[in-house]
Structures are given as structure tokens and as C-alpha cells.
């Protein structure tokens, strides 16, 4: 997956987790929590969806990398590089 494809995938996951939110104006460099109503259970949902969809494992001490879209894509890029986008 390219960084752009990973971003699209994260957006798709977010649209499932936070279906009431408008994601069109999401600022990649601002934290998700600043822009969306997400709590710790929602972040676990992101981790869970990546595990379910792509078998990507994220250790608990690395959850902090999922703070913003930019940090998430940057963190996931090496883990998802070899995954072919559906």
C-alpha cells in the first residue's frame, strides 16, 4: 500500500468508528482527538480493524503513533508496504 492508500484505509476505518463525524476537512497534522470525538475505546477500534483487515499487529507501547493522520500513515507505511490495496 502507498501512503495515500494507507490514508484512505484509515479514513474508511474512521468512518466506521465515528459515523457521525465529517471527515472531509480532517487536518493530517493535527491530532485526531483535537478534531474528532474519539476516546481510548475508539483508538482500540483502529488497532482492531487494522488487525482484522490486514493482520497488522500494533504493540500497546506503540499506540501513541496513532495520534494524527500524518503520524499514523508514517508509522504504518513500513508495516503495510507489501500489502496490496483491495
Amino acid at each position, binding site marked *: 500500500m502507498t501512503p495515500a492508500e494507507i490514508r484512505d484505509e484509515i479514513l474508511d476505518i474512521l468512518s466506521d*468508528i*465515528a*459515523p*457521525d*463525524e465529517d471527515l472531509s476537512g480532517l487536518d493530517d497534522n493535527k491530532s485526531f482527538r483535537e478534531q474528532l470525538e474519539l476516546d481510548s*475505546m475508539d483508538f*482500540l*477500534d483502529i488497532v*482492531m480493524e487494522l*488487525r482484522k483487515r490486514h493482520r497488522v499487529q500494533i504493540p500497546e507501547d506503540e499506540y501513541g503513533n496513532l495520534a494524527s493522520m500524518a503520524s499514523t500513515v508514517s508509522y504504518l507505511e513500513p508495516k503495510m508496504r507489501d500489502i496490496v490495496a483491495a
Partner: protein
Amino acid sequence: MPFQDRTAELPDDQRIVMTAVGLTSPNGNSLEDYRAALLAGKSGVQSYNIRYVGDTLAGICNFEATKYQSRRDMRRGTRAGTIGIWCAHEAIARSGLDWPNIDKSRVGIYVGITEHGNVETENEIFLIKGYDYDTSVWSHHHNPRTVANNPAGEITLNLGITGPHYTIGAACAAGNAGIIQGAQMLRLGECDIAIAGGVSESIHTFGIFASFKSQGALATHADPTRASRPFDKDRNGIVVAEGGCLYILERLSDAKARSATLLAEIVSYAINSDATDFVLPNPERQAQCVQMALKRGGLAPDQIQIVSTHATGTASGDSQECEALRNAFAGCSSVRFNNTKSFIGHAMGAAGALELAGNLPSFQDRVCHATINVDNLDETCAIDGLVLNEPEPLDQVDYILNNSFGMLGINSVLIVRRF
């Protein structure tokens, strides 16, 4: 003439009244629509398909859930929670309470449930099956969804209620049990407003259908609206339904102080146990439960105008309840018996509360709604006063007695009075 019952001996702060009701039923999402459907003979049973069991029948609710709950919270929570939230909002909106200024720490939530957690557990097992039973994809939402207090707890989260909340597990007697619990907590001073009744999400668990089918107790019929047929000779089982019904209960003294409109007063109740069988009812204990409720209320059987029966459409259950009623109401020519499950199926934890609600308007319109789908009355169910297929106008309705019985031999009876 003043009412002749035990409430005359009680001070107003020990008398419990119903000041509003919020509900969702397979044939209506408000008391007005639900009552109209019951008087019009309109069924809420439809064709339904659920995994593993396949095509079957169910009573399905269709209410606007997003009116009171975000899609995010609906995804995170349970169907029972969503039903409870709808009912609580609808009840509050109809109560006339100044809700923004109500002390939320003095509101208690008491929700009857037949079961809870089966739907969510089945969903997770179905999901991990697709991952070769890898439990690392089992949802972190599973525990908060399946704790037994979930349906009541979701109501508190949604409405910011900080008083006590819990569910009352009482099989299919749970709707009555929730109301009884609320009344008791008001009398004890544990809360000032009780939001009480029952909910059911049971149509979303295949297990309940499969289990009734294995027991030979799941209804089938070519016409879904004709499938739920208590007292009929050709009845062949239960139609499972979802639904919810929550009442606003208050002490009479509080309701009077705010000039609230009163739906009914709770005159008496009783709960007992058969202690005889996991599944089969015991008509002797059922009759005792009815008699205990009458006695506690200071009532004679012939003071009751309408008995809302529990009958579910099973061969033995309906006959046994009729035997109990024949004994409890022997010689009472004026009492009328009806059945709501013939319209909506068996709404499990919500059944008792919903079935009472559908009868409450009879205090004003003086009509007893019918039991529909009785083409050939089973002679073992033939009791004088059964209202069959068409509503029956009555001269007066002062008291309604509501039966709700459940597995493991739990019987509940609630008696309410016109106010």
C-alpha cells in the same frame, strides 16, 4: 363511589403512580399508535431471517433510533440499549417533567430483561470464526455490551442520569418485575423518579429461535400475521419479538405536587415461584400468585375488569394459564381476558410492560382489546370472558390485572387502577 382497595390506607408518599410511558412495539412506537393497532386487529409479526436458523417469523420494531442516539453510540452499544434509550426519552417527553431541572441523582433506572448478552456473544463468535477462531480479534466492546446492566446503563449514559441503575433478570416475567422494582425503590426513598419496565433484543440471537425450535415451541404459519395464536386449537408455538416499554413512576404526593397527568396507580403486585420445572408452568402457583396480588391489594376477584393474559401460543402453557385463571376468577362473570402476544408475538423482557401499556387506555375508552387469530377456540382454553377477535366495549374499567410468567417457574402479577 371511592375505590375499594388497600391504597385508601396508604399515605400519598407510599402510593405509586404511572405518569407516562415510552414504548416501541412491532405494531407501534407510541401508546396512541400501539393502542390503535390493538383495536384495529393489526399484527406486527413479519417474515424474518436469522443466521443458521434461516427463514422464520418475528415481531420487529421500526423506530427512529437516531432521534435520541448517535450512530457512534449505537455501534458501540447494544440493540437492547438503543431500545431502552428510545423508550426512556419518549416517556420523559410525555411526562411533563421539567427534565433539564430534574436532579438526575434522584432518578433510578430499573429495566427488566429476559436475557442479555446472547446477541453480542453470538456476533463475536461468528466474527472470529472468519479468523480461524483467533481470539485476538474478539472485540474490546464485548464486556461493556454484555454485562447484565447494559440496557439500563446505556440509558444513564445517554441521559446523564446518575441515580441507581440495573436490570432485573426475570425471564418473561421481567417487564412486570421491572415495574415492581421501580415502585419498591420509590417507596423506600431510593429515588424520586423511577424509569421502569422492560426491553428485549432477543430476535437478534439465533439461539432463542433454535432453542424454541428444538423444544417444538417455535411458531410457523404461511401468513406471518396469523402465526401468533394463543388459545387457538391450531396454535403451534411462540413468535419471538423485540420491543421495549418504560414507565415514569412517581410517588402520588410528587405527581400531585406538579399536577401531573396520571395514567394509572399501581395497586398491588406479587411474584412467586413454581419450584416444579425448568420450562413447564404450574397453574396452581400461577393462581396463587394472582390471589396473592388480589389479597395484598385488598381486592376481590370480581373487582377486576380486564386480565391481560401471558399466554404465548404454546400447547401446554396456554391451557395451564387458563386453568389458573378459571380457578382464580371462578364465578366472576364480568371479568374480561385478552392477550397481546396474538398481535406482536412474545416480546420477552418487554412483554409484561408492553402488554399492560396496550390496555391502559381502556380506563378512558372503556374498550377491552381482543385476542386475535382465534379461529377455533381450544376447549382447554375456554374460559368465560375471553375477548376473541373483536374488541369488546365495557361499561367501566377500574382495574387491570397483568399476568407475566417465565421459565424456571417465575410468576408475576401486577394490578393497576384508573385514577
